[in-house]
């Protein structure tokens, strides 16, 4: 498929652009970063497609209903409790595991609150998500006021996604979890098609709708939490990948939508990182580049929308 070619192209670009001796060393360095980019991009893209189907809304992402705010709040609280040095001294792998587990649990709680009545009541769901997000952001900001400047810098560093400092051990664990979650998502794909028809319709077709929603949200929580714990929050990547997948395929079947969104998400991150490293000379952060483009696309989507 053309999208697979796109990813191969992006990968080649990232690996080979400006390559010079020592080739082997640079390649191994780059391929490790590449793995992180592909994993996070694929996980975020797939998670957003699933989330949008469950929410019956093509503009919602896990980030928009307050997931990012949750991550920043947890980081801030950790720094507050442990202090900047204590936070930096935390052993990396256990911290990653605890963070991923904590985020997954918190995300399930958040989604649980949002979807208690299914996706029927979209307005209530969006409002609850936005207000919860604002509350968490407000709490995080309040705690940040209490921090001293050096601790505040630590929080800020942790709040922006970065692929420059990915630990090898964490990457291995994340890879296993994410690949398993992606496979599980793909297995759910035909049932998600039915769920897209709405709760009543899905149930009369014999789909245990509420159990499916729970399973799908569990997968979404896992995908988003593990990638966020690995690199930090990227708000608009998912929206970008999901919208492009819907636009490119013009299809409703999740068996193709999920892989497409995963490929697009991975391609965007890999290509973005290549451009950002070689053209912008690391003078900003990849997340900022992606969010700039994603933010523009989001506005365009909202403004161009004629129905619902």
């Amino acid at each position, binding site marked *: 498929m053309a999208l697979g070619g796109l990813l191969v192209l992006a990968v080649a670009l990232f690996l080979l652009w400006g390559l010079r001796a020592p080739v082997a060393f640079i390649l191994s360095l780059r391929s490790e970063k590449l793995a992180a980019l592909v994993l996070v991009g694929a996980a975020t893209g797939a998670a957003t497609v699933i989330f949008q189907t469950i929410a019956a809304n*093509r503009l919602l992402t896990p980030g928009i209903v307050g997931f990012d705010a949750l991550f920043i709040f947890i980081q801030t609280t950790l720094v507050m409790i442990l202090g900047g040095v204590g936070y930096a001294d935390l052993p990396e792998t256990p911290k990653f595991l605890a963070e991923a587990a904590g985020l997954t649990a918190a995300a399930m709680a958040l989604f649980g609150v949002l979807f208690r009545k299914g996706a029927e009541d979209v307005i209530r769901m969006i409002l609850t998500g936005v207000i919860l997000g604002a509350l968490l952001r407000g709490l995080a900001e309040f705690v940040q006021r209490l921090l001293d400047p050096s601790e505040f810098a630590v929080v800020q560093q942790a709040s922006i996604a970065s692929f420059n400092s990915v630990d090898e051990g964490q990457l291995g664990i994340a890879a296993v979890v994410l690949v398993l979650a992606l496979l599980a998502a793909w297995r759910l794909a035909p049932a998600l098609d*039915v769920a*897209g028809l709405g709760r*009543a319709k899905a*149930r*009369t*077709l014999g789909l245990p709708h509420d159990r499916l929603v729970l399973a799908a949200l569990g997968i979404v929580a896992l995908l988003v939490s593990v990638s966020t714990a690995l690199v930090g929050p990227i708000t608009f990547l998912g929206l970008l990948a999901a919208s492009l997948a819907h636009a490119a395929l013009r299809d*409703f079947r999740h068996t193709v939508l999920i892989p497409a969104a995963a490929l697009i998400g991975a391609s965007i991150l890999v290509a973005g990182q290549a451009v950002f490293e070689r053209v912008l000379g690391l003078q900003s952060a990849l997340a900022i580049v992606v969010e700039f483009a994603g933010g523009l696309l989001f506005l365009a989507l909202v403004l161009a929308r004629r129905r619902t």
Partner: protein
Amino acid sequence: MIEVENLTLARGGAAVLRDLTFRIPARGITAVIGPNGAGKSTLLHTLAGLMRPDAGSVTIAGTDIHRAREDERALILSLLTQSAGTVPRLNVRDLVGFGRWPHHRGRPTQADARLTDEVLERFDLTDLGGREVEELSGGQKQRAFLAMAYAQATPWMLLDEPLAALDPKYTRDIMERLRAIASDPDDPRGVVLVLHDLSIAADHADWCVALKDGRLHCAGPWRDSMTSDRLSALYDTPLRMVSVEGRTVVMDT
């Protein structure tokens, strides 16, 4: 046969269905009628197992609907809901194909594809098969959803106001198709539908279930149980059944 016993359901502290007991025979068209807010939709959703009653039971074709699993229910009855939403990019053929889901659960076979084509043919949708459902007119859309419910191949089809917002041509089209489905000698289905147009009910219904304030007003064969007096009492307004050119018309007086 649908057997309803002592069915009681409350929502938000208010009783919606009160101690309903009635039967619907296996064949023909059954009209569920009654004034607005009488509990007709709630009754249909409860029969379909989508709402759980506080007391009483619903037995369809020998199966207790509220004890059965979702996948078992989907082989006994299909439900056409009001305001059936759809997904962008979903075409008519795929929509009708969803009706086969209870049989293949995500792994459609050749037989499912063939059956889907037959259903499209039967509902004159073959030419529209590639069109997006969202692009269809209200009448065509309703016909597509009806075809989807039919493709489910269940002995019972429940329809919640299938004629809402349809013009006379499509009203007639849908009712004639339902009549054909209910009296198909090879594959008869029990059809239960919520109706507001009493003339259509009088013209087509074999059996009738009338609700008022969540209570059973009357149930039985339409011909025997429906009179002008009963209809007037049901709707709290003077109504008269008259015969015009051999058909029954309900008019206010």
